[in-house]
């Protein structure tokens, strides 16, 4: 029998070339803990800033956070507001009468001896987050991931193990930081869906301004529940980033497939267990025999969270449109942005070291677009309207800001959307070439940086164009231009190249000649004029 099983073994791919095997169906659910970015902690007035205070252990610890006897929790209702926003964004049913419960377990970084969470009556349930092929890059046209529940709870402190000294150092800065635990239904069937969901969820909490959404700092922590062909579920923990999450799933999938193929599933996959990720493999942390009895009980020191029915609707009205809705607006009339460009205006980065946030960039783009569109009016086809604003804001301006390390919020004090639209009109009207435009924009931004974006300063593009003598020469004598082209052809001394261009063998190389012309004329003569003239000089027939 053993020989027979081995003989029929499936070929297992390596993790690096992982693929799901059709006869082994993967089923996954996620449990995501999200630290809420409230000003204070969940049950005390301590500052909620565990990441930035990492070098100052126990700096933000009030009496309650270190569980001094006699202290009692005081609910921070900002966490309730944030949880309501997330529940609405995830299309959940908000429980207008939820409660806090105590989950008992003993650990050094849990000074109370229990965690305050919501076990019996969580804050929200029955939600969903839709994923789309177009927007989220999943394989299916769309897929709904159902959200089982959201619960508000407190974070623990942090333990630093000093094995050699036989001690554990405890930092309680994180103790009592508000968390939302979100549990999804086991709806995920492949890695693409999991990757897309985490990314979308991360962006959502940033968009709602309820969390920094960073996996790296632990502001979002993801546990995975996984089963194959309906065998017992395995919970994967200690997954610090997206690649750990995906690699741990791949490893665990292959491990379980091997167990099933070896006929050991009844023995090894019949009971749920918890496994940790070491960076290269999953290891058993807990099985059924060591399941903890958490002795849940209602927390009698905290009131129930009772909300009137108006709360959900009023909070909904204060919320920004969803990222999906904004994306759809931007790829539709009149903007018609590509999905890639629209995402740059909608997706939030982690905000560390960035020169802009998506909100200010989006606003700057929209204001500039409308100002430009108003001035262009009928002079352009509708589907070309976004070409200049997109190229010059998303590609050129952002590149320059990164190069100069200049925040967008600073330059917009002077370079307002209306003024940027003036600049776009110079290019639209061919008053300066694109190449000159790039130099001019960089010069303006550099000057802004040097003057510390003095709000009183003004930008006079016309004077600068004259000063640098970069105004496009619109009416150039054909003969004169052909003479310039002839000079360029002679100067590059590459007969073969010239012949290949003339014969049509290397059509694209004419761009090289045009580039030389642009360089020589400092961008004042249009590229199209150069191309036309080169073709005439070389007697190009193609």
């Amino acid at each position: 029998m053993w020989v027979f099983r081995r003989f029929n073994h499936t070929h297992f791919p390596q993790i690096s070339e992982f693929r799901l095997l059709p006869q082994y169906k993967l089923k996954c659910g996620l449990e995501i803990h999200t630290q809420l970015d409230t000003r204070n902690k969940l049950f005390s007035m301590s500052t909620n800033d565990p990441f930035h205070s990492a070098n100052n252990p126990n700096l933000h610890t009030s009496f309650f956070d270190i569980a001094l006897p006699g202290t009692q929790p005081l609910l921070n209702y900002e966490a309730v507001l944030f949880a309501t926003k997330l529940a609405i964004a995830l299309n959940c049913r908000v429980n207008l009468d939820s409660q806090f419960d105590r989950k008992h377990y003993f650990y050094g970084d849990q000074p109370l001896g229990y965690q305050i969470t919501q076990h019996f009556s969580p804050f929200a349930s029955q939600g969903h987050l839709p994923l789309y092929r177009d927007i989220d890059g999943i394989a299916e046209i769309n897929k709904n991931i159902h959200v089982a529940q959201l619960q508000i709870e407190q974070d623990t402190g942090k333990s630093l193990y000093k094995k050699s000294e036989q001690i554990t150092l405890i930092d309680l800065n994180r103790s009592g930081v508000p968390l939302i635990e979100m549990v999804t239904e086991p709806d995920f069937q492949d890695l693409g869906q999991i990757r897309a969901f985490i990314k979308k969820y991360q962006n959502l909490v940033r968009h709602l301004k309820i969390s920094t959404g960073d996996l790296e700092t632990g502001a979002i922590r993801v546990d995975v529940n996984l089963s194959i062909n309906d065998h017992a579920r395995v919970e994967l923990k200690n997954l610090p980033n997206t690649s750990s999450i995906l690699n741990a799933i791949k490893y665990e999938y292959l491990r379980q497939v091997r167990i099933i193929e070896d006929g050991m599933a009844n023995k090894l996959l019949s009971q749920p267990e918890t496994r940790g990720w070491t960076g290269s493999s999953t290891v058993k942390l807990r099985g059924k025999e060591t399941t903890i009895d958490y002795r849940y009980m209602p927390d009698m020191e905290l009131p129930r969270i009772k909300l009137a029915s108006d709360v959900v609707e009023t909070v909904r009205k204060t919320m920004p449109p969803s990222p999906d809705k904004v994306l759809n607006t931007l790829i539709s009339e009149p903007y018609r942005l590509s999905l890639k460009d629209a995402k740059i205006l909608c997706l939030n980065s982690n905000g560390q070291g960035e020169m802009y946030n998506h909100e200010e960039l989006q606003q700057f783009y929209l204001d500039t677009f409308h100002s430009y569109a108003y001035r262009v009016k009928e002079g352009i086809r509708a589907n070309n309207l976004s070409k200049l604003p997109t190229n010059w804001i998303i590609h050129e301006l952002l590149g320059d800001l990164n190069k100069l390390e200049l925040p967008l919020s600073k330059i917009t004090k002077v370079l307002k959307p209306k003024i940027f639209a003036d600049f776009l009109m110079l290019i639209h009207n061919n008053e300066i070439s694109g190449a000159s435009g790039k130099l001019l924009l960089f010069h303006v931004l550099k000057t802004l940086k040097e003057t510390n974006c003095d709000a009183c300063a003004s930008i006079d593009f016309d004077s600068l164009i004259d000063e640098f003598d970069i105004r496009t020469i619109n009416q150039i004598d054909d003969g004169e231009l052909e003479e310039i082209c002839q000079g360029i052809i002679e100067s590059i001394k590459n007969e073969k190249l010239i012949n290949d261009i003339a014969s049509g063998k290397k059509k694209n190389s004419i761009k090289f000649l045009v580039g030389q012309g642009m360089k020589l004329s400092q961008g004042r003569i249009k590229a199209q004029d150069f191309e036309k003239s080169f073709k005439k000089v070389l007697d190009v027939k193609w």
Partner: protein
Amino acid sequence: MYQNILRVGRCVRPYSSRPLIGLKFQSFNEIKEYIFKDNCCTNEYLSQSEQAKDHCLPVASRETVLKLLKLSGLPSKGADIEGIQETLNKQISFINILHDTDLDDSLDVKETRLLRRKSPPLSYQDLIAKINDGQNSDSNGSWDSTSRATMSKNGYFIIREEILNGTD
């Protein structure tokens, strides 16, 4: 029954959105007086149970005590097992009394709190007012928390390995 309600009533605290810290104790005697003042009278229950029929309760086995110590994260080495068995019996008797206590069925168990019961639902305005009220407080409650600890290192609290041994 009436007495029970009164006892519980004394434990109920008001609940506001601002942290409350009581007045500073002025002397050691004041602290002693505060700590030894019976509020919930658990001793009364315990002594009641001693007099009651619960003397015949079976004593928890040594193994059970060791298991409970492990579950509670307490060291078993050098533990006074007999003493713990005696305390456990008292506690079980106490729980038995709680089980036998008449309950007022008109009370909603969902509302059981050491707080004012039946608080009205919060409207959106109430919710925002509570958030603003909480954030206007001058104090952030932080203090040099490790200064009062017997052991600390570079601002960290310290847990010795032997306490963690045998816990999950």
